């Protein structure tokens, strides 16, 4: 089993353009948004002079001044709460949470205010606010540095939840998030920050908007559904399935890009074509987005399904210490294992060979 950090391109093409990293694309998106709209203000810990611990805001304080890209005191609820006030006054704050788990102190502000202010005021006080959160594991981080909390955000009405898997999407989706009049939780897959792809910062290719999923790889045998850091895993699994040959699966890969709003049309269309699906994500399986996605697909595509929609997710455990994380992360082998259980011979095979399927 191999779940090492994957930094390959997820979009495949664009080989003629110079390679850029996802981090660079995010940085450029922030810079372009700030240049275009003086209402865009960045707030966070260490995002000014230092340029952020992942350097996503590198150079922005210098270029736009410390008021536009502000190092705040160390208090996440305070950061998000003051951003709410700034949005009430017509600004378009973009907040950086340093790591996923360190967004939790701001959870009350996010749920009780950010997600509800527009609704509470019948549109009077919209929240054009973006919360950038580096998430996910695979970078050898010590405890609390590798969480994936998208289940919490996706279960919170009033928020949009998006996450890029490609360099082009990093730019395009972040621009869309900042331009949105709704609050967007923008989840940045940490281990893809250094992933590269051909991408031209001077002419960034347009990408579909928030709410649209994309088929990253067409296939006929089954659909792999992933988002963020799992998309490269799905693509690699699809490659492996073709190359490894024996089974001869031709797997379609759907990149959700946006958990909320959820693109049922694209996902359901794919599953109706293939008749089988596996949802892949890093956050714990129980209560994670995979359940929602699988249930929704099943509701919509029941009579097209040859097998139950399966899920490959992180285990239902706290994120493990670095030396054990490879066992936790859904990797290519585990994805292919699930594909193999999609009842190709119409008999149910338990995961891992035992314990399940009672």
């Amino acid at each position, binding site marked *: 089993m191999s779940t090492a950090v994957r930094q390959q391109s997820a979009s495949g093409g664009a080989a003629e353009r110079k390679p850029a990293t996802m981090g660079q694309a995010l940085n450029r998106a922030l810079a372009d948004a700030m240049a275009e709209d003086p209402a865009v203000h960045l707030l966070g810990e260490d995002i000014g002079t230092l340029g952020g611990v992942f350097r996503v805001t590198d150079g922005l304080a210098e270029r736009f001044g410390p008021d536009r890209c502000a190092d705040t005191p160390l208090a996440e609820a305070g950061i*998000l*709460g003051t951003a709410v006030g700034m949005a009430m006054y017509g600004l378009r704050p973009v907040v950086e949470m340093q790591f996923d788990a360190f967004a939790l102190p701001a959870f009350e502000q996010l749920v009780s205010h950010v997600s509800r202010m527009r609704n*509470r005021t019948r*549109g*009077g006080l919209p929240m054009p606010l973006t919360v950038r959160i580096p998430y996910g594991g695979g970078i050898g981080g010590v405890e609390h540095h590798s969480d994936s909390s998208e289940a919490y955000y996706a279960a919170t009405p009033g928020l949009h939840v998006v996450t890029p898997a490609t360099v082009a999407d990093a730019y395009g989706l972040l621009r869309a998030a900042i331009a*949105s009049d709704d609050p967007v939780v923008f989840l940045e897959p940490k281990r893809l920050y250094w992933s590269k792809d051909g991408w031209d910062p001077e002419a960034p290719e347009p990408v579909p908007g928030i709410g649209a999923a994309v088929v990253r790889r067409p296939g006929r045998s089954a659909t792999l559904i992933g988002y963020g850091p799992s998309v490269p895993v799905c693509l690699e699994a699809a490659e492996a399935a073709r190359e490894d040959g024996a089974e001869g699966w031709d797997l379609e890969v759907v990149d959700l890009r946006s958990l909320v709003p959820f693109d*049922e049309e694209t996902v359901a269309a794919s599953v109706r074509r293939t008749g089988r699906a596996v949802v892949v994500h890093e956050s714990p399986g129980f209560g994670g987005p995979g359940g929602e996605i699988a249930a929704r697909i099943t509701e919509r595509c029941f009579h097209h399904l040859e097998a139950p929609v399966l899920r490959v997710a992180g285990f239902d455990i706290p994120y493990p210490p670095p030396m054990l994380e490879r066992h936790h992360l859904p990797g290519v082998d585990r994805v292919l294992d699930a594909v193999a259980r999609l009842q190709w011979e119409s008999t149910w095979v338990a995961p891992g060979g035992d314990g399940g399927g009672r």
Partner: protein
Amino acid sequence: MTVLEQLGAHVPVPPPSWRPRTDPAPLLPDATPHRALGVRDAEAGSAGRAGSGDEELLLRLYAAVVHGRRYNEQATALTKQGRLAVYPSSTGQEACQVASGLVLRERDWLFPSYRDTLAAVARGLDPVEVLSLLRGDSHNGYDAREQRVAPLCTPLATQLPHAVGLAHAARLKGDDLAVLALVGDGGTSEGDFHEALNFAAVWQAPVVVLVQNNGFAISVPLSKQTAAPSLAHKAVGYGMPGRLVDGNDALAVHEVLDEALERARSGGGPTLVEAVTYRVEAHTNADDATRYRTADEVETWRAHDPLALLERELRERGLLDEETARRVREEAEQKAAQLRERMHQDVAPDPQELFAHVYSERTPQLREQEAQLRAELAAEGHRTAGEEQR
């Protein structure tokens, strides 16, 4: 070579960051609350005795407190009549409420908590719109941006970072305004209070935080809430001035807020004000205050009633004749009658509103759910036509 040898002749000296970063003395509140009403010049706190130019203000405060008390009574009565889901009365705290509403300029913003409906009404908002949350027909009944009054805030202290952020944004834009945020004694224990005040001081945001210390957080008395000399003493820990004021003295509250807001507007930064007052009624109509406090305790505060303090001052200054007092009382009755009447009109919020403002555009999922509800309502309409109007 040891570290000492490396240093050679250098004598260890305290680095510059040692010195106090701000002089704490001016930040500390006075030992007793500032008072203005009924105080001879010599006794007055640091802000000094109100000048004689205050006459109009005194009369405005007086009228507003009389109206406010009547408003509180009326709102409480409406809960008994099933016209309000719940009402947290500010009886006893009218001085703070009314001063907060009147002290603000038009451009300023107010951030009230659930108890501060009277402050919003004193600011000039429509009382029916203000009570919408508590009536249960909407989460917020007025146009917050136009009125420059944030929605009444339920989760304690969470409005404070909003107030700071808005004040900061206004300052960044160069707009000449200040923000007044209200919070209770209980709310000062929340982390959001701390984070907001710290941001305010670091940013020198034009914001004033008024703590209405009414002695209780529901049933919990101040002594279980804090061991601090006063809540105003918290200010020094943020590097902003703390002021202690008699919260039943409308003129004193007005003075202290006015001074602090003016300082904020002119770039002088934030202020924390503790107004010592008392919640005369139960926490809300649903609460039973006899479970946790004695009638005697409530009684000790009667002698320091905000309305009595004002009335005495006006009478002593010869500013309040019977005619004026009667007129003010009548106005209060009229307003109460209007409120009663309007609140007795049924409202029937549109169920489709449930989906209208969750996002700027409905998601596909919400469109589907809206259609489902529409179909249900249509079916229901067939079965029980007319029942929709409660």
